[in-house]
Each structure stands twice: as C-alpha cells, then as structure tokens.
C-alpha cells in the first residue's frame, strides 16, 4: 500500500480562544497521484483544513503530517504547495517577477528560469507575464496562486477555490493540467464550491460540515447512484418516506428500487405525477444530503 504524502489525524482547531470550533477531529490521508475534493457549505472549515495542511496554522489537537513529518519543515515546504483563495502577491512585482521571487526560494542559478516558465505555462499566464500583480483580475490571481503553488515540482497541492472565477476555456485547460500533474504523482486536496470541477477531477470526495468530515467516498461510487425526479401538479405537505421535496416536486434515490415501484408509492399517497425522469446523482445532491442529515 502506498504511504500517504499528506495525513491529518484527528485534527482539531478553534479560533477566538476556543469559542469558534473551525475543525473537529478531522482525519484524512492522501496518497501520491490522488485528487481529493473537499466540499461543504461556507464556514464548514475547508480553508482551515488547507491552512493546517500547509503549516500556516498549528492544530490544537491531533497531528498533521506532510511526507511523514511536520508541514513546517523546509522539506515539507519544498514539497507542499498552497494556493489560497484570494491570494495576495507583492503588488509592485509583475507576474513573472512574482514567480521569479518564489523560484529563487526553491532553486539557484539557471534552473530558476525553467521553473518560472513551467509555472507560467501551468497557470496559463504567459499573456499576462509582464503585468503587475496589483492589476490582475480575480481569475488571473487564482491562476497565479496555482502557478506559485505548483512551482518547484511540489508533490502535494492544496488548492482553495482555485478553479472558481475562471473562464470556462482556461478552466478546462487548468483541469487538464491538474489531471496530468496527478497522473505524474502529484497529490491534491481541492477545496471548492465548484462541484462540477470537483466531480471532474477528484477521485475521492470528503464532505465537510461544521468542521467535521461527515462522508468520504470515491467520487465514482457517489455519482453512480440513480435519482428519480418527479414533477407533481401540487407539492405535498409531507413527502412520502424516502422522498425529498424539491421546487418542482419530489426526488428519490432509487438504489436497487425500480422506477415503477417509486411511482407506485407516489400514487399510493394520492400524488398526481405530471412527469418523471431518472438522472445520475450529482455532488450537489451529496452535499445537500449531508447538510440535511446534520
């Protein structure tokens, strides 16, 4: 079995002198080449988990291990890259200079130029390489954050909303590059509200709600399940057992049940079904279910 490159064991972290518990007993391990999606509502603790993994925060209890050691060692910083949401860069530097500044921390001499060129390409930033960091759009800042995180051949990337606010064409290219990095063995923890991107990239998803991981599963297994959507003439006051009320009617996780059996339940509850269709489950369903369950 491959050893994890990043591991959080029963990690807890609170703010405001313990009054605000951001993360509680979070355990997560990521192996090389794996992309784990970290999803959940605002304030669930996703950014705190990433900052703990990056060594920018120390856990109150529990252990964070990057490559088997503390994330604050020089070796870990060489190997773990962090792309924060809303990253701030030295405003007077151009994009190329920002990457050059970070490259200087990783390598000496002629290798620096190659590192900068690689990072510019990864972030699709060649066209704005001479633009000052202060003049970048939000999407460009996110791309620069990604480029600096990956700079120096990092083995673990911690990505916080990195694919948000980016136009679809560049987003697709970035997804492909991230997937390629993963194939080359780079592990990633991707926190995002962009569930479509998580579905597309992540092999495994962890759902974080109020600081706790409430569900972890392979993305494919989560999304393989079928959901029956039912449009009703009139919404019922209470849904039949196992059904959920939606804006247009009801939803039902089919599992091993047949569509006919589910529709028969509706008829038994005197519900007038106008239309129905079967679709595959989305990550949004998973997150909403986790929230409902809490």
């Amino acid at each position, binding site marked *: 079995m491959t050893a994890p490159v990043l591991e959080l064991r029963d990690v807890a972290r609170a703010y405001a002198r313990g009054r605000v518990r951001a993360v509680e007993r979070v355990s997560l391990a990521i192996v090389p080449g794996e992309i784990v999606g970290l999803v959940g509502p605002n304030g669930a603790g996703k950014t705190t988990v990433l900052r703990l993994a990056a060594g920018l925060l120390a856990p109150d209890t529990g252990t964070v291990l990057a490559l088997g050691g503390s994330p604050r060692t020089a070796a870990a*910083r060489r190997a*773990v890259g962090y792309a924060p949401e809303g990253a*701030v860069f030295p405003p007077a*530097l151009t994009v190329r200079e920002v990457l050059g*500044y970070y490259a200087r*921390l990783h390598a000496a001499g002629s290798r620096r130029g190659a590192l900068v060129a690689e990072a510019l390409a990864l972030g699709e930033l060649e066209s704005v390489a001479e633009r000052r960091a202060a003049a970048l759009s939000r999407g460009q800042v996110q791309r620069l954050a990604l480029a600096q995180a990956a*700079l120096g051949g990092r083995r673990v990337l911690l990505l916080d909303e990195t694919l948000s606010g980016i136009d679809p064409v560049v987003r697709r290219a970035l997804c492909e590059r991230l997937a390629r990095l993963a194939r080359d063995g780079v592990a990633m923890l991707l926190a995002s509200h962009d569930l479509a991107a998580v579905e597309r990239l992540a092999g495994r998803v962890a759902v974080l709600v109020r600081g706790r991981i409430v569900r972890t599963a392979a993305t494919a297994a989560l999304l393989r399940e079928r959901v029956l959507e039912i449009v009703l003439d009139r919404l019922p006051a209470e849904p039949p057992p196992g059904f959920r009320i939606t804006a247009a009617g009801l939803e039902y996780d089919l599992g091993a049940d047949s569509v006919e059996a589910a529709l028969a339940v509706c008829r038994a509850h005197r519900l007038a079904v106008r239309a129905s269709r079967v679709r595959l489950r989305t990550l949004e369903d998973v997150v909403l279910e986790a929230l409902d369950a809490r």
Partner: protein
Amino acid sequence: MLDYRCALAEWQVVRARLVRTRLGIWLLVLAAAAVALPGPGDASGAARVATRVGLLAATLAVAFGAGSDADQAALPLALTHPTTPAAVAIGRVLSAMVLADAVVLAVVAGFAWRHGEFGVRLAAAALAGIAAAAAGAGCALAAAWTAGNALVGALFVYFALLSALPPSGLAPLFGSHPLVAAGGVLLRVLPGTWRGAAFAAGDAGAWLHALAWAAGGTALGARRLGRRLA
C-alpha cells in the same frame, strides 16, 4: 546557505518598489535636500547630516518595501515556500540598508563635490550614515511588522525632527519633569541623529547600539512574522 539565498530573494521585492513606486523619488528628494540645504559645517555636522539621511532613507525603504498592507498580506504565502521568517526579515532589512547606504554615499559625495574636499571627515560621516541606516532599518522593520506603517511614519517624524536632541540637552530646555526624563530614556533607547558625532568618532558604544538595533529589530520583525503562523 538556504537562508542566504532566501534573504537575497527579498531584494527583488524592494527593488521593484524602488523603481515602480514613489520610493525612488522620495530617496532622491531626501538626498538632494541633504546636499542642497546649508552645509554641514564642522566635522560633527557632516556626520549628523549623514546619520539623519541614513535613518530617514532606511525608514522610507522599509515603509515602502515591507510595511505596506499589501506587502504584509503577501508575506504568509512566501512562508509556504522553503524560506523562514528570519530569512525574510534579514532580506528586507538588508535591502533597506543597501538603498539607504546608497543615499548616504550619494549625499557624502555631494558634500565632497560642494566643498571640494574628501578626507577623513567625510569618510567618517559616511560610516556614521551607514551605521545609522542599519539601526534605522532594523528599528523600522520591527515597527512595521508590529503596528504597520502608521508607527513607521511616527518613527520617520521622530528621526527627522526630535532625534537630533541629545538626552543631556532635554533637561536644560524643559526642566526636570518626569515626562522629560521619559523622553531622555526614549532618546537613549531609540536610534537617533544625535549619535552621529559618536558614530563618526568610532565610539564603540554608539556602534554597538546601532548593531543591536539592526540585529534586534530584525529578530523582532522575524518573530512577529513567525507568529502569523499561529
């Protein structure tokens, strides 16, 4: 070796500030004013001017190169790369010192050109300015990373106006009020223009004081930066 390279990396940030913000203009104005204003007169006068220029130039360089909100907001991300708070602080202080030293040397060269002489007097003044720049950079960095550029601004005013007065000169002017005594302590503790003559004369105490501020201010700045990794 790693820290040395990481410290050098910080020069890039300060250099960009020099050429792309008003820092360069302010340093030029400072140097021009120091050369153009009435001459330094005696030997201690030249040292005093060079000391003041060193302190002010270092403070400006730190304010622009390390103290702005945007620069400070960018610091934690740098710490996710293989560098350390100490390397970042050393790099910023050294960069500010280099700029301030360049201004001091330009001012001393201006004196030499204006008075048609260059001797031991001006060499000593240049050394005094360099010592003051080191102390000023360390002090300003600690102030910037403790309370931001507001405190650095206050420090600039202090260096420009108040620090010329030696502690022994306070009592004859303002009497023996406890506030005057406190002011005397402040003048002794902080770097100041009044030490210029002592720097120029090679006074070991004055030089050790400057060294202590350069090293101590850098260490305090590094500690403040490190505490952001809470």
